[in-house]
């Protein structure tokens, strides 16, 4: 029987009322009296020497407040990188300077060169057109393998090469892995591209900098997934503003998908310029600017090999990946192809020996960083494509080959440094086989063939490491930040609660699901709990939302804080009830004395805390407010099995997705409806990557897919009705809610199933194509079938 409130209930998303009725408060809705507007002049060449900018004509134009160039920021820090990777030789990665405005050189199309602050945006834009920029264009380096060749054009003159790092993982295993390949009964090899993507949240980025001269206080309103992290990075490393003089507010944010984790130049600029101009300064990205300035995602080129023994057991795996960093290191870019990717290469399988090599490369392109899944989709895609290829080479059923190699005993220490606490991969595969109606596939294929179409079925598994992460572990791995989460629970006198979480909601429904947890713990109505986030002035230091960590880490902090509240409230109740504290029970919002009919309501206890007339003042303080910081002891490991069924038009190459089934194990679930929605959104983005989305540069570094005219976003008509199930639940063993996180699974798990299905369809048409790169566009399918 489904619950109608609390943990496990599909409570309606309370935030949707404001989102759907136009009453949200997004950063662009924030307008400060007297604010000026900034327009960034961006480089239109990919690489060049910036010899000078003549601002004189522009400065004389109407409405211009001030024009900034790179020279204005010489005394200011550059953009920081939050993760240092150590290479396979024990050396730190190469870390080039990353200026707020280009200085000396431009290194990608879209890099800001100058900023014009004016009374209106149109005036700023007019003046920007009057800037005379002198750039000597240099050859651009776009292709990663070209970039690491001897004599290649260097993106940065002051570092040794374009190779940011050459990472080996686990380096000590390398020889043993190679030996296993020599002894293998069969080796399957696959080369593939994980296509570069643009995140495209519905709301483009916005920054409003404000400065109060009287108190020397800065405020930045920004579209961020983690305002506290922006405050720390920008305050400490860029502008030198102490945190107590800097407030960062990320109000309603219209989607992030990773691209709003990072600290961007425009944020630092608006904060800096507000003081310099003594006026609030606002920037709102256009969609065109977003394509050229939001961190891109993915962009890996990989060769992966699987060694199998004579019984088709996986014996060893090795990979060789080139990962594009773009022209500069975005905030968490180095961690994505390494610790968020290499550690996942075991997948769902008990492969005993694994070696991962990743070469991170600078190119004259927009910086690349985390995008929904971040490293884990890249790992899943190559592994699950490879296993499928191996099955076909060996002539065995792809599901059977997977099952044969599944990890079945937990905890399981992988050869790539992580320990899966729990899971049941056969259970999700069993569920998937039932959902996908494999028995009915042959008949559906015949129906398609009767229409002149081909039909294909593809499957894959996935595992992800979510709920990032234990701070001491990530510190060893190079993180320059902790990854705990915080919560403050403030109980008001009349019994209502305000929970200030360090997590940030940018569409995920935290305001609803977090309230369900607290309400359940106390036994009160969900509507008595308000969730507050996104303002460094209101809540404790928090690390924000990414990596499917909010409920696993942020939710756990909230549980810990609520437990402290309940413990104190029980003390107050025991005083009011004149009973021993150990006899006090909390149920349905009332404290009672075990074995008696004596009880006191939640609201009477909270009132007593703030009107402590009859109160144990000798033992406890008045008030009812507690804070907890939670640092997890491990990642969480959601897993699942996905199946895709496609229909392929052999004449045009068009692929349509006819069925998509997803069986996920997210551990315990707070709000099934919200989880389903998260999976739907993830699937849309995964299918988008597989079939449609592609961020493409030409050889000169011009972005060819720079608008929706050429960058294909998935639309409703491209997607099927999904069949989603999350009834397989192996609760996380190390967090108090037993939750694993669900935000990225759909995007991680879906691309290989789509591509596997397309190849299956081609095979059914007599075309044995061993691989096709994403996006699987009609023209690529046609070329593959007619090649």
């Amino acid at each position, binding site marked *: 029987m489904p619950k109608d409130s609390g943990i496990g209930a599909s409570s309606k998303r309370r935030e949707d009322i404001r989102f759907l009725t136009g009453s949200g408060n997004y950063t662009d809705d924030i307008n400060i009296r007297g604010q000026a507007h900034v327009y960034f002049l961006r480089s239109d060449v990919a690489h060049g020497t910036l010899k000078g900018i003549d601002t004189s004509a522009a400065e004389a134009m109407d409405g211009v407040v001030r024009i900034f160039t790179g020279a204005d920021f010489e005394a200011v820090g550059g953009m920081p990188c939050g993760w240092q990777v150590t290479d396979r030789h024990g050396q730190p990665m190469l870390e080039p300077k990353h200026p707020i405005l280009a200085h000396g050189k431009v290194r990608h199309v879209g890099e800001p060169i100058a900023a014009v602050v004016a009374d209106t945006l*149109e005036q700023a*834009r007019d003046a920007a*057109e009057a800037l005379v920029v002198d750039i000597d264009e240099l050859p651009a380096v776009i292709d990663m393998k070209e970039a690491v060749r001897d004599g290649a054009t260097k993106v940065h003159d002051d570092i040794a090469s374009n190779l940011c790092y050459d990472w080996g993982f686990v380096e000590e295993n390398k020889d043993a892995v190679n030996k296993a390949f020599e002894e293998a009964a069969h080796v399957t090899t696959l080369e593939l591209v994980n296509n570069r993507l643009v995140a495209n949240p519905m709301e483009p980025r916005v920054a409003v900098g404000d400065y109060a001269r009287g108190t020397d206080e800065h405020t930045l309103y920004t579209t961020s997934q983690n305002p506290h992290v922006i405050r720390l990075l920008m305050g400490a490393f860029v502008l030198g503003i102490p945190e107590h003089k800097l407030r960062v507010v990320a109000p309603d944010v219209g989607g992030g998908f990773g691209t709003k984790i990072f600290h961007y130049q425009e944020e630092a600029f608006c904060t800096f310029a507000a003081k310099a101009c003594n006026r609030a300064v606002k920037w709102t990205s256009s969609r*065109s600017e977003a394509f050229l300035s939001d961190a891109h995602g993915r962009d890996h080129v990989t060769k992966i090999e699987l060694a199998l023994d004579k019984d088709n057991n996986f014996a060893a795996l090795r990979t060789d990946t080139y990962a594009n960093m773009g022209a500069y290191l975005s905030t968490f870019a180095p961690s994505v192809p390494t610790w968020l990717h290499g550690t996942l290469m075991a997948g769902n399988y008990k492969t005993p020996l694994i070696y991962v090599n990743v070469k991170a490369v600078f190119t004259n392109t927009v910086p690349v960083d985390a995008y929904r899944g971040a490293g884990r989709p890249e790992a899943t895609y190559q592994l699950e494509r490879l296993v499928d290829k191996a099955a076909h080479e060996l002539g065995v059923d792809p599901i059977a080959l997977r099952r044969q190699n599944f990890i079945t005993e937990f905890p399981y220490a992988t050869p790539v440094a992580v320990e899966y606490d729990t899971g049941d991969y056969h259970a999700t595969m069993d569920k998937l086989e039932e959902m996908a109606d494999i028995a009915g596939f042959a008949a559906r294929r015949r129906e398609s063939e009767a229409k002149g179409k081909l039909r294909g079925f593809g499957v894959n598994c996935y595992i992800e490491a979510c709920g990032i992460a234990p701070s001491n572990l990530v510190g060893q791995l190079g993180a320059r930040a902790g990854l705990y989460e915080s919560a403050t629970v403030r109980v008001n006198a009349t019994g209502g609660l305000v929970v200030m979480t360090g997590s940030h909601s940018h569409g995920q429904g935290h305001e609803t699901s977090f309230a369900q947890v607290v309400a359940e713990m106390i036994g009160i109505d969900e509507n008595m709990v308000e969730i507050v986030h996104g303002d460094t002035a209101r809540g404790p230091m928090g690390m924000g939302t990414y990596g499917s960590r909010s409920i696993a880490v942020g939710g756990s902090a909230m549980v810990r804080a609520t437990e402290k509240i309940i413990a104190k409230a029980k003390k107050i109740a025991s005083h009011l009830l004149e009973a021993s504290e150990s006899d006090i029970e909390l149920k349905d919002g009332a404290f009672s004395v075990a074995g008696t009919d004596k009880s006191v309501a939640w609201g009477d206890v909270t009132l007593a805390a703030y009107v402590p007339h009859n109160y144990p003042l000798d033992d406890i303080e008045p008030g009812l407010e507690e804070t907890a910081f939670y640092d997890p002891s491990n990642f969480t490991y959601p897993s699942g099995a996905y199946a895709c069924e496609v229909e392929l038009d052999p*004449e*045009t*190459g*068009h692929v349509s997705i006819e069925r998509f089934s997803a069986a996920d194990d997210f551990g315990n679930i707070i709000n099934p409806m919200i989880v389903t929605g998260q999976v739907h959104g993830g699937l849309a983005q995964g299918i988008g990557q597989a*079939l*449609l989305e*592609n961020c*493409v540069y030409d050889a000169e570094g011009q972005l*060819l*897919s720079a608008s*929706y*005219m*050429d*960058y*294909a*976003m998935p639309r409703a008509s491209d997607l099927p009705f999904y069949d989603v199930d999350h009834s397989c639940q192996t609760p996380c063993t190390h967090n108090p809610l037993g939750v694993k996180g669900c935000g990225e699974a759909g995007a991680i798990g879906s691309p290989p199933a789509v591509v596997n299905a397309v190849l299956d369809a081609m095979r059914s048409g007599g075309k044995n194509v061993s691989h096709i790169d994403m996006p699987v*566009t*009609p*023209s690529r399918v*046609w*070329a593959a079938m*007619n090649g």
Partner: protein
Amino acid sequence: MYNFEIEKPATIADAVKALGRDEAQPLSGGQTLIPTLKARLAAPSVLVSLHGIDEMKGVCLDDDGRLCIGGATIHSVVAKEAQAHYPALAGLAARIGDPAVRNRGTIGGSVANNDPSACYPAAVLASGATVVTNKREIAADDYFQGMFATALEEGEIVTEVKFPIPQSAHYEKHIQPASRFPLVAAFVAKYADGVRVAITGASEDGVFRWTEAEEMLSNSFAADGLKGLTVDGSGMISDLHGSGEYRAHLVGVMTRRAVAAMGG
């Protein structure tokens, strides 16, 4: 967007007069022009909106039985009002862009712009329609002169397009996945005196007639007859979304499908 003046004439005569102003440009739906202005890629000093000219709106039949569509008629009106007379044309109009485009974009704007991937030019050319301007009548075969190029002179307005109604017709398009414009689309129209086939989206020279297919279909109206007939990929557009060779292949597929949909 740069600043500009806007004129809203109520008659063709006033529109022509307004277009005589320095750096004036007609605005007829603006589904291409407005994004261009917003990107500051065009800077007309005067925009002359054709939206308020009633004599350029509507769908009717003339004495010769031609379907006449005013140049300022929006796609959604054509989708409704042409349905009873020329369903293939109505179907084309119903599938241009999205509802916002169909409620602002006009046939005159589309035909005057002659985007190499626009839908309407295929219908106009395949129907052997007549493009009527404030000055003259231009046969479709003379009107389209290459990518974004037409016979229109400076200040000349498409006031009406007159379509001879075929015995049967069909428009088959394969969309470019991002823009949803045709990657390649074929409009096949069968008249008593022969079959006309126009292809949009494919060629570097814009919309064109596939005369070899027309000859075959005029002799024998059968999709199978077209198998093996190919167009040369060398003059085809080649971009992110498909090679010239792929587009050339789709010309055959779309044409055969159109013919098959017409029962051939």
